[in-house]
């Protein structure tokens, strides 16, 4: 039975698949996928998640707006959020952290880094 639940919000199917593969290394972690910010909010409306991983650059609703919406929702205001950015997008990264994101991962993503970040935020040994 899953002990933790994770929402991955990423528009690129490849990146999403890669994140799901990386997170599959963590036992007791159930992963739900969302295509963009709007889809992510829909998933958040129907379930509570222990952690959210979101890309910044996405169509329809980007990661920054998603972070803002999540933090203003009392149900998810304390849910750890990890943003996925490119190295050059330091302004977006700073903005996301100001809005309440807890950590960031830069692309190209490395599975060990994803695992370590999630484990740290969920305090998994």
């Amino acid at each position, binding site marked *: 039975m899953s002990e933790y639940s994770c929402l991955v919000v990423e528009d*690129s*199917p*490849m*990146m999403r*698949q*890669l994140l799901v*593969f*990386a997170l599959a*290394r963590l036992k007791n972690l159930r992963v739900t996928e969302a295509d963009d910010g709007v889809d992510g909010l829909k998933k958040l409306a129907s379930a509570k998640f222990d952690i959210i991983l979101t890309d910044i650059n996405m169509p329809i609703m980007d990661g920054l707006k998603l972070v803002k919406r999540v933090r203003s929702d009392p149900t998810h205001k304390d849910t750890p959020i990890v943003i996925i950015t*490119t*190295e*050059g997008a330091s302004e977006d990264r700073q903005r996301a952290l100001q809005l309440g994101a807890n950590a960031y991962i*830069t*692309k*190209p*993503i*490395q*599975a*060990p880094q994803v*695992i370590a970040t999630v484990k740290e935020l969920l305090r998994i040994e």
Partner: protein
Amino acid sequence: MGEGTKRNSAPPPDLMRERDEVLQSFSRGAKLTEQFMQEYSRIREHALDLEESNARLRAQLEADDALAKLLGKVERLEQERQDLLRRTERAEKAKVSFDERFGEVENEFASLANLFVASNQLHASLTPRGVVRRIKEILAQLVGAEAYAMYIASSDGKELVPVASEGVPGELLVPLPLEGSSVGAVVHSRQAVIDEERETNQIDFERPPVIIPLGVDDTTVGAIVIFGTLEQKPRFSHTDFELFKLLGQHAAAALVGAALFEQAGRRLPGAEAFRDVSV
């Protein structure tokens, strides 16, 4: 007895002598007794001294025995300590070895995951545009390429035409001759060129660090050229080399397959198309 007889009260000389002798003898006896008492006292003191000395020696012996036992115990404990230290050292070495192996397995897993996802994505589209988008995504998101271009050989086989790029100035995106260009040489040789000596995060359009020939079956149809990587990616990893191999072997095949499918009006072949494929 007559009146005129005087009575002599003085003791006779014999008695006097005898008395003197008795007195002398008594005096000698007293002296001997005194000497004897002194000797007795001395012997008693000596006996007491001996007893004390004996007690001390016994205590010393007991203490020595306890010390010997303690020393034996200390020696055993020291041996146990050394044994524990050796075991701890072995356990630490095993842990380090396990951690290293675990790290290697994790990295290998990450590498395989990247390759699986890249391969899966390359063949997930049947439109040339979709395939190109996925190739670009692999280069940008998995390899960390910042400036790159993909060239396909023209139908006359004389030029390499750029069909996709990122981070390359427009004036540089021109057809390259198959003869006389570094990219053309790689296409001819069918051997990838990867410069592992220098840092790749400095974009270099003159001397690109990576040129990968793209093959379909036994034919080379083009090349992917990486001019530079993202700032945080100064070196290629083992996974990148595997991705280069994957792209070299599958990217062109996926692209050609998608192009042919498009040319066929996106009609899927019927069973008759596979009539002669049985082996």
